């Protein structure tokens, strides 16, 4: 971690803050190429909205988004082959090291799957997102992206007309902007950059949540809730940032780490600031007790977006948390350890116990994600090399599984839209054995049964935590995961052992995009369960740099 010279850092940094430095700092373009590609492509996507004829927009946007993710991935791999220890760039505001590269790779791979899900237009005719307003009303007036969420009011979205027109394609640049924000978030080397990245990743997500074609009100309610609570959490983060600046005289992680290592400054500022900053991250990662938005938002958002949120946001939030704890607050871990310990327990208990009684599948998976956040917390507070690599692996494994889960949920539909109530899934195996089998496999992965990546992730995280002396926490986590098996087993039993309702939902035949996304998720889940070294090797190359 000692890449940066530490002498004189506070002075130089305050200069940066005050914008007095006019020199362009040197930039390691090769290292940050993946982020740049994604952000540039997001801007291009906005231009596409403005200039490309409406009929071709969907195809252009899908091609652009997929191409972006693939190119960014290629740039990442190219850089990852060369890098050994990593370093910082953009005047020390961004740090790219082995662990960050792993997180970027995870985010890009998951985003690829999410974009495939979002691009699907065969399950819901025209796509799962708000239809083109002007086309529906027959108008030809020019449109610009800014009016997207607000103008898409419920009455314009008449179902009959909506089903024939295509969806709004602003979705794609929004996803790319959010993705770019997430990538910066797990590479941020100071709290201010982190905060900016947090906003960049969050704002598009708020919009995306409100863009469902069906059940408009539920979707918009989710978006508003997410936005209000997200803004609230951001405020906490910002306040914590201010307190930490007061404590360390700098917002840089390395300075905070130096300050905590041995100083006689006010611990009140440190711990109050730490608590508030961490709370903002726990909110994003939907860790209990800051999880309350999760079920409502997962439930209301379009399923493909829920998949994107559940997979990518989780990775970004925990990536940021890992960086913060490993780089900035390692020295004070003795004090905060027990507090976050209890947060982990709380999250597991809330997720598992609430998940047991849910009758809606999306809400159930939301609670499952809260429980998983608890398991991830176990890894996040294990500040050893093994703890880090295990948590990174867990994030990758969980992301792919949950993405495929939401992809599969989107397939089971009634005339009203998606059939997410549990009773609709009764006897699904009789109607569509393949979908039921795939879903069963994914649920078993969430439950952590061997031969799935879920087992490997849990095994790696729990054994790392155990070795680090957190035996009691591991016992609680094991009990919680044993109990959590109930949640998934209930669905499996329902699908296989119950009789289908006479007017039950139909199972759509997925188009090529959704098939590809689900297949990707299932294959990765299986592959990482059988040969985890594929990813574990990479996850354990090295830690964060600062």
């Amino acid at each position: 971690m000692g890449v940066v010279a530490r002498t004189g850092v506070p002075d130089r940094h305050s200069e940066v803050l005050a914008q007095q430095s006019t020199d362009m700092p040197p930039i390691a373009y090769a290292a940050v190429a993946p982020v740049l590609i994604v952000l540039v492509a997001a801007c291009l996507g906005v231009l596409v909205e403005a200039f490309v004829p409406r009929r071709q927009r969907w195809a252009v946007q899908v091609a652009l988004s997929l191409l972006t993710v693939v190119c960014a991935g290629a740039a990442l791999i190219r850089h990852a082959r060369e890098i050994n220890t990593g370093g910082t760039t953009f005047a020390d505001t961004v740090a790219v090291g082995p662990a960050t590269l792993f997180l970027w790779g995870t985010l890009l791979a998951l985003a690829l799957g999410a974009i495939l899900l979002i691009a699907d237009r065969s399950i819901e005719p025209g796509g799962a997102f708000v239809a083109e307003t002007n086309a529906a009303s027959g108008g030809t007036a020019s449109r610009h992206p800014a009016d997207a969420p607000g103008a898409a009011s419920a009455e314009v979205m008449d179902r009959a007309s909506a089903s024939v027109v295509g969806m709004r394609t602003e979705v794609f640049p929004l996803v790319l902007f959010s993705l770019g924000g997430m990538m910066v978030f797990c590479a941020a080397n100071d709290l201010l950059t982190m905060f900016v990245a947090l906003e960049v990743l969050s704002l598009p997500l708020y919009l995306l949540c409100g863009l469902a074609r069906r059940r408009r009100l539920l979707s918009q309610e989710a978006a508003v809730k997410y936005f209000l609570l997200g803004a609230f959490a951001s405020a906490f983060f910002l306040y914590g940032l201010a307190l930490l600046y007061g404590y360390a005289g700098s917002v840089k992680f390395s300075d905070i780490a130096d300050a905590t290592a041995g100083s006689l400054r006010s611990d009140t500022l440190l711990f109050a600031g730490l608590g508030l900053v961490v709370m903002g991250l726990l909110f994003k990662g939907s860790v209990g007790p800051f999880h309350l938005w999760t079920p409502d938002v997962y439930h209301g958002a379009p399923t493909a977006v829920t998949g994107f949120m559940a997979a990518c946001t989780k990775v970004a939030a925990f990536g940021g948390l890992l960086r913060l704890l490993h780089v900035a607050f390692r020295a004070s871990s003795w004090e905060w350890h027990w507090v976050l310990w209890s947060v982990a327990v709380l999250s597991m208990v809330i997720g598992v116990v609430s998940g047991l009684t849910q009758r809606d599948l999306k809400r159930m998976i939301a609670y499952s994600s809260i429980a998983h956040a608890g398991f991830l917390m176990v890894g996040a507070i294990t500040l050893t090399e093994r703890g880090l690599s295990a948590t990174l692996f867990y994030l990758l494994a969980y992301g792919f599984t949950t993405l495929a889960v939401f992809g599969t949920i989107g397939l089971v539909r009634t005339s009203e839209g998606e059939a997410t109530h549990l009773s609709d899934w009764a006897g699904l195996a009789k109607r569509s054995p393949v979908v039921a089998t795939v879903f069963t496999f994914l649920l078993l992965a969430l439950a952590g049964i061997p031969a799935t990546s879920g087992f490997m992730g849990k095994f790696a995280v729990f054994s790392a935590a155990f070795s680090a002396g957190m035996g009691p926490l591991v016992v609680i986590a094991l009990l919680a995961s044993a109990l959590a098996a109930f949640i998934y087993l209930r669905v499996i039993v329902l699908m296989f052992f119950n009789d289908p309702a006479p007017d039950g939902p139909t199972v759509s035949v997925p188009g090529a995009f959704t098939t590809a996304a689900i297949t990707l998720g299932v294959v990765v889940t299986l592959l990482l369960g059988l040969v985890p070294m594929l990813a574990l090797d990479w996850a354990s190359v090295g830690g964060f740099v600062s």
Partner: protein
Amino acid sequence: MDQRNGLGDGVTTSVLAAPEPVQAAQGAIQSNAWLIIAIPLLGAAVLLLAGRRANGWGHLLGCATVIASFGYALALFSSVGGSEQAARSLHLFSWIPVNSLQVDFGLRIDPLSLVFVLLITGVGSLIHIYSIGYMAHDQQGRTGRGNTERRRFFGYLNLFVAAMLILVLGNSFVTLYLGWEGVGLASYLLIGFWQQRPSAAGAATKAFVMNRVGDVGLALAIFLLFARLGTTQYAEVFARADELSSGTVLAIALLLLLGACGKSGQVPLQAWLPDAMEGPTPVSALIHAATMVTAGVYLIARANPLYSMTEVGQLVVAIVGAVTLLVGCVIGCAYDDIKKVLAYSTVSQIGYMMLAVGLGPAGYALGIMHLLTHGFFKAGLFLGAGSVMHGMRDEVDMRKFGGLYRYMPITFATFGLGYLALIGFPFLSGYYSKEAIIGAAFAEPGWRGWVLGGAAVLGAGLTAFYMTRLMLMTFFGERRWRNRTTSEGEEFHPHESPAVMTGPMIVLAVGSVAAGFLLTSGERLVHFLSPALGELQEGHTVLPHSVIPVLTLGLSAVGVLVAWLVVGRRRVPDTAPQRVSPVVRAARADLYGNALNRAVAVRPTVGLADGLARFDRAGVDGTVNGVASTLGALSGVLRRWQTGFVRSYAMSMLVGGVLLVAALLSVGTP
């Protein structure tokens, strides 16, 4: 450590000290031992993925893969048989290679695993063949190409065999855990195979969840080993076991025992096993009698170097075994369902094995021997019960049977031999293995010898009672089925089963008769196992050596006689009498095993103190959706939290944030 170098450093390393060509052949056989697992796994994949196309030949493929595995196991056995080396480790690939967390996927071929492989593939082959006949009709009566059910069934069976082989062949505790969960999953699928029965779904879920409780113990033991030794490979763990403190060893021993109790249906986690009889009968024979449920015994025998270090741990194992064997016997006396009686008989026989492995070096090999002989006669008994059900329209109530020996002579003869072997009739296989365990139990010093030995002898008498009762009610006496009908109102037409079913039964009956003698003559098995389990130590029994067999046989004879007086001489009532003693009532209620299970397994987990009445309606035992209502109270509280109002969410966040900061401040600032 040095013993595992035979194949430890690579797949191609050959065995030392053998003539060149033989050596090459043996080396090839051993280095490709992974095929034993891969063949049935491939079979499962083909059967489950091929779809309807495979309906016509799927069952044949299913049988062929297991028989091929058996053949390979025999070849492996003969290539290892006479060699001096105790264990070969076969490194396949490195599975989890992260700096200090190293888990290799490898196989360990030693006498203990070989014995299990032969049992699993041998008995497995017979049961596969039997299933061809048993599953010939699906639930809608379709046969041949239309019978998707049978193909799926064979797919699951193959999957089970593969997982079970991973369990016993793996060379580390983590590999064992992989197989452990794999057999749990396959067992779950097979118990719930007849999906249309709600009871099957409930039983499958119960089995799965009770096993998870045990798995927590196993997982913790593995983590503990990791944390203390940094490895879970058997060879390294056992070589470095003396680095562990005695407290750690005891903790590991007890945690492993918890895992073993879950998988092997031992007190207090025994209640799932009888419910598991909802599955098709071949499943009961293969999984819930001969192989999977003995995995717990395997685990403890495998970990014998650890158990040998902790006397307390051994004693707990022995006590669990002794209690279980009595509990199983007592409950077995009260049931009228032929499969449930056999299930509780299995519980109690595994209790004997647990007792044996709990006796330490004096008993490891004896436990494994009883496991083998039990594998033969209990599988035979279950197949016989399946044959009876096949001829009696799937009826399981023994009160509707009677006088069947005339209609099913082969079933009667094979079942009868299995019965005699189970009650320890002299010179049949059960006699040798059970007698040896009872003798070893009496050889424990002091009060332990009297208590453990006494329990074992008493169990033998009770076994004789309930099995004779079962025989009399099923095959002898009045033909009660003549004036009774099935629950659907059909009449009974008992008939003998086809040859594809009776064939395996005959083979198993031969095994029930001869296995005991073959394995014990010249201490063959004990000697063969000694590299893995240590030399068998014989102690001084608290009773003279000659008295014990006489006592056992005498008590067994009393059991048979009492059964004849109670059941054989009198008319069997059509329905179970209701005015019975509290003992019988308790036994019919599984000695309150379910209630106990909820108390020890569910309640602490749930942390809710509801009344017992409420648990009756909604617990692990209830319908699947009822599970949730056990947690209803707590979950309801949490749900009220989820109001849907942003203002209350924001309030909660604020409170949470304040608490978080307050906690940090109180810990962080002095």
